[in-house]
């Protein structure tokens, strides 16, 4: 399959008054044509920073790219000039942000905001750009698009605004769409509509999506593959089925156990103990070790490499080392693994995947 974007060994720090924050410490992943890669993780795990660095949208004054490359269309996006980058933004890669209430310009008609990338990148005439914008608004399910073009953002609801942001993002048929928690600020029914819309549009214009979220339910709904981030690193990556039904990293176990479920056997919802690591002074070894009941001595000393579970599934935990002891994951995770052919808890045709 064709790789759309490939992030190689990305290392990045922020310089703050308190010191150097090692926000990203060696991240590798790739996105294939037409797929949706979900990046999950808690606040501060580096998911937004990783994707903003693809777009080079991080504040220049405080960000230092220490290492790595971001390959897109044969070019390293970290090396090209700002001018060249402006031609990539909005045309080849575009972005949807978390809060639709604040991501549209309050003093500009939405028509002008949708037309902007069309006029800039596709060099359309004003009449053509207007026509295309009306098409886009229709595409994202906005009723009466001609009338709506002349209105301002405050005349739209949150869900409608996110549809407009999506229309802006898709205006130039981007190869890659980065959605940074696009449904987090919306209520649940609107969330479902926006997710449906995105899935639908992805098929229509054949774009790849990086979907950032902390909502595992959303991941299961939209993603083809999942990357789990923790403390500035990717700790586990695999297809949705692999990560949901055959997770290997204790952090992924924790995440899945803390997901509310209707057939839960325990009364109390699990919560991962402790707090995320302080990236001003990142812990030695596996960043999750201090919160993990499965931590071994080596976890405190050395950062685990990504161990291969299958062709598509990798996890960074010493538990996968051939010399590691066999441990049992939490009950909720075992329940899941029972349904995954190839896991050691598989119980035949008891349920089947998903």
């Amino acid at each position, binding site marked *: 399959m064709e790789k759309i974007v490939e992030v190689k060994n990305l290392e990045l720090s922020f310089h703050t008054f308190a010191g150097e924050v090692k926000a990203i410490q060696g991240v590798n992943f790739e996105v294939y044509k037409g797929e949706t890669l979900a990046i999950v993780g808690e606040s501060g795990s580096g998911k937004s920073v990783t994707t903003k660095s693809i*777009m080079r*949208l991080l504040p220049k*004054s405080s960000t230092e790219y220490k290492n790595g490359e971001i390959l897109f269309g044969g070019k390293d996006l970290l090396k090209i000039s700002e*001018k060249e980058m*402006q*031609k*990539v*933004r*909005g*045309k080849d890669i*575009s*972005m949807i*942000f978390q*809060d639709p209430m*604040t*991501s*549209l*310009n*309050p*003093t*500009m008609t939405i028509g002008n905001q949708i037309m*902007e*990338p069309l006029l*800039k*990148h596709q060099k359309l005439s004003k009449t053509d750009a207007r026509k295309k914008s009306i098409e886009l608004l229709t595409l994202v399910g906005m009723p009466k698009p001609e009338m709506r073009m002349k209105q*301002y953002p*405050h005349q739209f609801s949150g869900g409608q605004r996110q549809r407009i*942001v999506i229309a*802006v993002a898709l205006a130039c048929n981007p190869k890659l769409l980065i959605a940074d928690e696009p449904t987090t600020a919306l209520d649940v029914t609107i969330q479902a509509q926006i997710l449906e819309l995105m899935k639908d549009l992805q098929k229509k214009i054949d774009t790849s999506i990086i979907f950032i979220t902390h909502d595992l339910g959303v991941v299961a709904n939209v993603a083809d593959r999942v990357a789990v981030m923790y403390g500035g690193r990717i700790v586990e990556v695999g297809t949705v089925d692999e990560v949901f039904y055959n997770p290997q990293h204790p952090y992924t176990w924790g995440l899945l156990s803390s997901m509310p479920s209707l057939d839960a056997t325990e009364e109390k919802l699990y919560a991962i103990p402790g707090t995320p690591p302080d990236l001003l002074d990142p812990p030695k070894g596996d960043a999750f070790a201090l919160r993990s009941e499965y931590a071994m001595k080596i976890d405190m000393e050395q950062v685990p490499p990504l161990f291969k579970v299958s062709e598509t599934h990798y996890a960074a935990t010493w538990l996968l080392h051939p010399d590691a002891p066999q441990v049992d994951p939490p009950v909720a995770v075992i329940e899941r693994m029972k349904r995954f052919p190839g896991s050691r808890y598989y119980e035949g045709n008891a349920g089947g995947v998903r």
Partner: protein
Amino acid sequence: MAKYITKRVIYMFLSLFLIASFTFVLMKLLPGSPLASAAKLSIEEREVVYEKYGLNDPIPVQYARYMGNLAKGDFGVSFQYKNADVTTLIVKKLKYSAILGAQALIFGTLIGIILGMIAALKQNTVWDYGSTIIAILGISIPSFVFAVLLQYVFSVWLGWLPVGLWEGWKSSILPSIALAMGPIAIAARFIRTEMIEVLSSDYILLAKAKGANWFEIAFKHAFRNALIPLITVLGPVAAGLLTGSLVVEQIFAIPGIGEQFVKSISSNDFAVIMGTTMFFSVFLIVIILIVDILYGVIDPRIRLSGGSK
């Protein structure tokens, strides 16, 4: 919108009525009379003049007569300029003040906005500090110090421009620059603060993500959103400038309304003081109304009440 403006105009007249009444009372409380300095007049002659202008009537009667005339647009006559009509006098003087004020306002706001934009776009660089220093100087150094400095450098030393008096447009340059220091400082500070805030907002990030360059981000996306607070403070500043500056006009010997106002107070020229106050009030109130309408033009979220869109 029409309903809103009608309502505002009614309030405007109400405010003017109150201002006129209040000033009238204050004037009557002032010691002395317009003729106090006219030593040549005998007591009998004075009585004749007082009688002629109705100054011997009870104060409520004077008040009613004055307000009645005011409603007809008649401000009365000046005591210090031999029966000169106050309206004609003010309009003649106001011309000079308005030219100075308008020039100072336009020049000052433009320079201030440019300085503020540079400071915000190049935050925490030499450019930013330079612009901030100019703004602080503009606010803290009084305009008469600038006025004297400008006179010394450009008139006395270089001899490029006249020191004072009104000898055509050239005479307006130095006083206008002296008056512009205030608006420069105000505009620079407000635009800087507001631009920095706007530039860190989500929609600017989205504009960047659309591929906009710095110029489009600064002017197409950010500038309009940063204007509102500036418009608010510039309204009263504009009214103040257009109706003349007491000090700067005095220093440059410009025959403007500010100079006239000072003269009238010291000679107790009751009608001119009242007239000038009313002119100033009308200016201020009209400008505040314009500012309120401008809000809606700049920011579509600010809808003027009155039901219609």
